[in-house]
C-alpha cells in the first residue's frame, strides 16, 4: 500500500501547516452540530484529544465517504438515521467496534455485525390538530392511515430519510405485499411535504389533520416559542406497531482511519454515561440509548415506548426505494 505512506506524510504535513500541537480526530458529523459541540468538550477534557467536525447531511457525508474510499481523512462518522450508516458499511468502510463499547447500549440498537452502533434515538409519532381530530378518532396502527377515512387528512415527508426508515420498518414487519398496499393507500390519502418541521407546521395550522413525524420536532418547537405546535398534540403508537418504530442515530469508526484507538475512544465516550448525559441535558430532546441515562419530562420516557423489534442494518434497503418509486412517492 504505497499510498498509505503517502497519506501518513500528508497528515503530518497538514498538522504542521495548521500549527496544531495536540492530537485530534476528524469527525464527519451528520448529527446536529450544536449537539455534538455540547458533547465533544467533555471528551477533549478527559482525553486531551481535540475533536474536529465536518458537518453535513446524512446522505451528503455518506456519499462523500463512499467517493473518498480508503483515502478518507475521516476517523469517525456520526449520522441522524441508520440508513446512511448502512450505506457506508455496505462498501466495507467501517472498522468493527470493540465489544466493551457496543455493550454500553442495548443490543437491538446496533447492527448484528457490530460495525457501528446506535447512540441516540427518535420515536415515530402521529401529530394531530387538536381542533380537527378528537382523541378517540386516532388510529390504532400506522397502517390504518391508508384507510379511506383518512383521505386527504394525512401529511408526511416521503423524501426524507426519516420517513424512509419508517417504511423500511413496515417492510421488515409486514412484508412486501402489505407494505406496497399501505404505500399505495398513503400516496392516495396523503399530502406530501418536504421535511418533518413542515409537516408539523401544516398540521398545527390546520391545513391537514394528522402527520407522521419524529417526537423531538414537536417538543423542540414547544421549547422555542410554541409557534408551530400550540394547536397540536402528539400521539404515540404502542404495542410494537410499526408506527412505534424508533430510529437510531449511528456512530462508527472508519477502517481507513490512522487514529483508530482515539476514534474508538470517542465512540465509547459518546455512548458512555457522560456523553449520554450531555446528550440528555442538551436542547436536542433525542433519547439517549445508554440505560443509565434518561430525558427529563415532559418528553415521554423512553422506557414507556413500545417499539417493534427490527434488524437495524436491514433498514431502508433498495427495496424500500423501489416500492416508494412504484407508487410515485420518489
Amino acid at each position, binding site marked *: 500500500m504505497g499510498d498509505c505512506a503517502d497519506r501518513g506524510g500528508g497528515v503530518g504535513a497538514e498538522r504542521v501547516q495548521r500549527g496544531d500541537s495536540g492530537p485530534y480526530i476528524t469527525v464527519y458529523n451528520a448529527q*446536529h*452540530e450544536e449537539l455534538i459541540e455540547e458533547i465533544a468538550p467533555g471528551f477533549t477534557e478527559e482525553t486531551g484529544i481535540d475533536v474536529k467536525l465536518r458537518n453535513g447531511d446524512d446522505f451528503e457525508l455518506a456519499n462523500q465517504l463512499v467517493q473518498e474510499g480508503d483515502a478518507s481523512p475521516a476517523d469517525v462518522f456520526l449520522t441522524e438515521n441508520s440508513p446512511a450508516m448502512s450505506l457506508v458499511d455496505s462498501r466495507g468502510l467501517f472498522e468493527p467496534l470493540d465489544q466493551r463499547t457496543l455493550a454500553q447500549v442495548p443490543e437491538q440498537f446496533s447492527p448484528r455485525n457490530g460495525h457501528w452502533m446506535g447512540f441516540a434515538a427518535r420515536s415515530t409519532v402521529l401529530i394531530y390538530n387538536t381542533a380537527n381530530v378528537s382523541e378517540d378518532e386516532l388510529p390504532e396502527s400506522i397502517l390504518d392511515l391508508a384507510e379511506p377515512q383518512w383521505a386527504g387528512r394525512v401529511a408526511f415527508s416521503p*423524501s426524507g430519510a426519516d420517513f424512509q426508515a419508517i417504511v423500511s420498518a413496515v417492510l421488515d414487519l409486514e412484508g412486501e405485499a402489505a407494505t406496497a398496499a399501505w404505500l399505495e393507500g398513503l400516496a392516495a390519502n396523503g399530502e406530501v411535504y418536504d421535511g418533518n418541521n413542515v409537516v408539523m407546521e401544516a398540521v398545527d395550522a390546520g391545513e391537514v389533520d394528522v402527520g407522521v413525524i419524529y417526537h423531538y*420536532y414537536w417538543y423542540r418547537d414547544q*421549547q*422555542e416559542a410554541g409557534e408551530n405546535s400550540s394547536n397540536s398534540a402528539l400521539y404515540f403508537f404502542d404495542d410494537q406497531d410499526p408506527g412505534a418504530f424508533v430510529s437510531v442515530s449511528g456512530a462508527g469508526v472508519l477502517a481507513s482511519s490512522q487514529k483508530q484507538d482515539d476514534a474508538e475512544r470517542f465512540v465509547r465516550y459518546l455512548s458512555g454515561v457522560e456523553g449520554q448525559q450531555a446528550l440528555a441535558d442538551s436542547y436536542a430532546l433525542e433519547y439517549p440509548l445508554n440505560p443509565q441515562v434518561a430525558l427529563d419530562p415532559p418528553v415521554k420516557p423512553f422506557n414507556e415506548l413500545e417499539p417493534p423489534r427490527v434488524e437495524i442494518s436491514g433498514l431502508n434497503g433498495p427495496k424500500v*426505494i423501489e416500492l416508494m418509486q412504484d407508487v410515485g412517492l420518489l
Partner: protein
Amino acid sequence: MTVDEATPARTVGNPRTGRPPLLLAAGATVAALALIPLGFVVVYTVTVGPDEAWRLIVRPRVGELLFNTGRLVVGGVALSIVIGTACAWLVERTDLPLRRGWHVLLAAPLAVPAFVNGFGWVSLTHRVEGFGGAVLIVTLSYYPLVYLPVAAALRGLDPALEEAAYTLNHSAWGTFLRVVVPQLRPAILGGALLVGLHLLAEFGALQLLRFPTFTTAIYDQYRSSFNGPAANMLASVLVLCCLVLLLGELRLRGHRRYARTGRGVARTAPRHRLRALTGVALAGLSTLVVLALGVPIGSLIHWLVVGSSTEFPLGELATAAATSVGVGVAAALLTTLLAVPVAWLAVRHRSRASTLVERSTYVANSLPGIVVALALITVSIRIVRPAYQTFALLLLAYAIMFLPRAVVSVRAALEQAPPRLDEVSRSLGAGPLTTARRVTLPLILPGMGTGAALVFLAVVTELTATLLLAPIETSTLATEFWSASAALAYGAAAPYALLMVLLSMPATFLLARHPRRLMTP
C-alpha cells in the same frame, strides 16, 4: 481594414476572427475544468448500463419532473424579463421620482438568498406552496439578473436611432418594440440565460415551497442513500435541459454586433413624462419591493424577536462573517480572471471552437451543488490529494459553479467596447498585450466588477460544496444558518441570515452603480 496593412509585424492570426493559440489554450483549460462535473455524470450514466438507465429515466416521476422544471423555467424567465425590463425602462427612461433610490431598491433583492426568501414566505403563508408560489418567489429573487443589464444597456443606448424612428412616424410603443428592444436583446438574453440556469439548479427555495423539480429530486435520490446512480441519471436529464437553454439563447442572440461606432459621445436620452401614470408606477414598484425585500427581511426580524433560541454569539458571528467575505472576495477574483479569456474568445474571436469553449462553462451552473461537489471529491482525492479539502480546491469549486455570472458580465462589456479602438492602438505601434492592458482592459473593468460582484453574492450563500469541500472546521454564514435552521432553532438562525443580507449589500450597491463610461465608451 487598413489596420492590417499598417501592422505587417503581426504574427498570430487575424485579430478579429483568428484564434491566438495562447488565448485558446487558456479558454480550453477553463472549459475543461468547468466540464469536470459533466464528466462525472456521464461516467456514472455509462457504468449504469443502458437497460438500467432506461428504467431510471423512463418512468412517470421523470415526466412529472420534466413538466415541473420546464414550466418553472419558462414562467420564471418570462416573468423576470417582463418585470426586469419594465423596471429598467421606468428607472432609466421616465421622469419617475426618486430614481436613484428605486434603482438601488430594485437591485437589492440580489442580496437576499432565494432560500431565505422562500423561508420568509412560507413562514408567512403556506399558500405560496406549489407552482404559482414557486414562480412568484424565484422571480422575486432572480429578476435583478435581468433588470441590471437591461438598465445598463438602456443607459448606454444612443437616442439617435430612436429619434430617427420618431421622424419616420413610429409611435412611442412602436419605437420601443422595433428600435429599443432589439438593441437590448443581448442584455435581456444574457440575463434570461442566467435566470434559467439558476432555476435549473435552484434547490433550497423550491424545497421549502414543495415544488419538485429535477434538482430537488436529485437531492431526494441522494438522500435515499442507495441511489447514487438514479440521482446522476436525473442529473444527465438536467444537463440536457441546460443544453436546450444554451442553444436557444445562442439562436436568439444571432450574429449581430452591438458596439456603437459613431463619432463623439452619445447623448442622454430624453425622459418620457409619466404624468398621471406616476402614481400607478410608484404603486407597482412599491409592491414589488415589499414582496421581494419586505417579506423576507420582516420574517427574519420576526424570528429574531420571538425565537427563544435567539442569541448573538458575537465571536462566532464575526468568524463566520469574515470567512464568508474572505472566500467570497477570493472566489470573485479567481472566477472573473478565469472568465476573461473565455469572454474574449467569444466576442473577439468568434468561431465554433470559441463558442464551444464559452458554452462549456455554463453547464456546471445548471447542476445541483451536491453533484458538483461529489465530482470534485472524486477527481481531487485521486489526482491532487494534498489539495483535498483546502481553500484552493474550494475556490476552484466556486469558480466552476459560478463562472457564467462572470462570463456573461465580461462578455457584455466586451461587446460594447469597439474593436476599432484596439485596431487604432495597434496601428499606433502598441503590441497586443499593451493594447489589452491600456485600451481594452480599462473598458471592460466595470464589466469585470459586475461579474465579480455577482459571483460574490452567489458564494456567500453557497452551502453544499462549502460543507463538503471547505477545510475542516470552516464556518461560513451559510453553513451556520443551515446548521441552526436544521435544528429548528429559527431564532438562532436569523442573525446569520440577516448578516448574509447585510454583507451582500455592498456588492449589490456596486452592481447598482454603473459608471457611465461603461456603456458609452
